[in-house]
């Protein structure tokens, strides 16, 4: 447990909005170990974005932590001051949409150097002022990582504007931005969703290689099991703000035990010949069903499912599972 890079334990978070109190996260629980690529899978609206922002120490406006902890190497990310020290510097971030993430009126070099300016490099001289020589150091480091993400002619690329790059190249530059500060964890928020399929493949391969080369752990958020299969060592599945199942990628993909995991996987077009879906719709966080939030849509639901939220139990094969029907398996 103690060697976890990132641990999210029993996190319950609600957001006060105009429509009332939305219970966005309900006992989210998973951990990322050093050097591993951890997948976080869930549909749109399951609380992924809120979770990402909370891990970065930037919970949405009006958010309230009801219970639980979020810690980076034992340091409390729910403390804004602590989080400010960690984000950018020790947790790199790769955004979802490379077309929107850059400020269009500044050069990409200026924008990525800005990350290094405020986060610094671990081997920067202590207490050094941000001057020409420090900036030159940062620039050299940036060129090094731009080369690692295979941007041709990195020196020249620094002075170009975002719109002068393709989406794939922009995503590579953003990956370089996440790697530049030598973080031990990278948070990747659906980094391939906005890209076309061939570019997606290249970016995934690159991420896989970089994670290994730089020995950096990654929390890879996605809604796509195809992506999970390609890049993740382990995966945690979320439904409507609840962690339902966590295990190694082969365990989850080849033998899903939570009904939701199985049904979500069946929706993947490559895995089924006919187009299927999950009947019903995701419950509103304003009025979540009691107990297991998947129960209203679950074919195996019984009274036990709605009476109490099933706890996340360690099962015999090492996975964690929150389903009353699988408790005998655990």
């Amino acid at each position, binding site marked *: 447990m103690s060697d976890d890079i990132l641990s999210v334990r029993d996190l319950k978070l609600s957001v006060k909005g105009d429509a009332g109190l939305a219970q966005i996260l309900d006992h989210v629980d998973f951990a990322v170990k050093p050097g591993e690529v951890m997948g976080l899978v869930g549909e749109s609206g399951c609380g992924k974005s809120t979770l990402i*922002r909370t891990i*970065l120490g*930037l919970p949405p406006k009006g958010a309230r932590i009801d219970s639980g902890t979020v810690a980076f190497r034992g340091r409390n990310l729910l403390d804004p001051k602590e989080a*400010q020290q960690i*984000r*950018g*510097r020790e947790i*790199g*971030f790769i*955004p979802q*949409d490379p077309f*929107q*993430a*850059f*400020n*269009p*009126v*500044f050069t990409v070099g200026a*924008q990525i150097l*800005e*990350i290094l300016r*405020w*986060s610094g490099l671990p081997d920067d001289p202590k207490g050094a002022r941000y001057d020409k020589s420090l900036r030159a150091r940062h620039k050299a480091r940036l060129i090094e990582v731009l080369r690692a993400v295979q941007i041709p002619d990195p020196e020249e690329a620094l002075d170009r*504007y975002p*719109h002068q790059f393709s989406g794939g190249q922009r995503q590579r530059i953003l990956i370089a*931005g*996440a790697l530049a500060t030598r973080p031990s964890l990278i948070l990747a928020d659906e980094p391939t969703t906005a890209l076309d399929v061939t570019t997606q493949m290249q970016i995934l391969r690159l991420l896989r290689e970089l994670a290994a080369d730089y020995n950096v752990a990654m929390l890879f958020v996605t809604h796509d099991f195809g992506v999970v299969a390609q890049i993740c060592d382990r995966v945690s599945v979320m439904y409507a703000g609840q962690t339902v199942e966590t295990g190694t990628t082969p365990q989850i993909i080849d033998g899903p035990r939570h009904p939701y995991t199985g049904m979500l996987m069946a929706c993947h077009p490559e895995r089924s010949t006919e187009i299927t879906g999950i009947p019903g719709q995701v419950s509103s966080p304003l009025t979540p069903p009691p107990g297991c939030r998947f129960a209203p849509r679950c074919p195996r639901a019984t009274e036990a499912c709605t009476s109490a939220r099933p706890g996340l139990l360690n099962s015999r094969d090492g996975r964690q599972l929150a389903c009353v029907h699988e408790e005998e398996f655990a």
Partner: protein
Amino acid sequence: MLLFLIRRLILIIPVLLGLLLLTFLMLRLGGNDPAAAIAGDNATPEMIERIREDLGLNDPLPVQFWDYLVRAAHGDFGVSAYSQRPVGIDILDRLPATLELTIVALVLASVLGITFGALAGIWRNSIFDHTVRVVSVAGLATASFWFAIMLQLVFSMGLEILPLRGRLPTGWTPPPDITGLYLVDSLVTGQFATFWYAFLHLVMPAVTISLGGIATIARFTRSAVVAAMHSEYAAYEQAVGYPRRRILMPYVLRNSLVTPVTQIGLLFGAFVSSAVAVESVFDWPGLGSYLVEAIFTSDFNAVLAVTLVIGAIYGVVNILVDMTQGLLDPRVAETM
């Protein structure tokens, strides 16, 4: 960029031709007889007819327009019926006063509009924001001539801290004519008393003209800042550890300037037309009051020439605006 500049300058020419043609037609078809205006109140019909013949007013309209264009192309805009001087000379006399007034008003509107708008956007839904929004609606809804008279009542008649009219106190010698802008001329020749008086005289007319502009620029800046602060790139900048202050300045702010800058260009045109009324109220010896006199006295040559000058200024200012946008946004620069 140079090619863009040349192309845009050439494109002004057809615009000005169209503007002249429209003004020309409106004047000629409007029913007022310029010959009668020149001849004066005591003229006999024969005298008026002779003037008509001299001026070519009996020729077909296309011929008249063509003759006017040919003369104008040679720098001859005719003689003013009112001042009996060449219109070109009159305009050169009057133009600096209007330029000084509108430039000061534009600077005032830009600085205040962008500052208020940006702060309102950053402190969205604060008391400051609500105040700016209410005041800017009021500012847009206020008629400038009414506002001018109110200013005069309060600051000149009541508090007696600002001069009522003109560019300088009566009898005060203007600074040497270098640019024609009193603020500049008095400053470069070291006449600080003149500078101070010129400044005091500028305050009320400039504030009056800029009022609507401050409101417009503030509203555009505010919404641009709000949009930029909620943009994906601002969220990204936050997620990778930029400090909040740094995100605002320069990243959000520079992005937010593109729209207001367009507005500033458009406003310049509005300012020049609003100067027409405001100059009359403040007895400001500029093109606006000249134009009003010209219209009232059917001084067609003067009206045409002033229209041409205002049109040309408007065209040039908009080219400057486009070039500023190129500086602010590299994507715009690429299309130049």
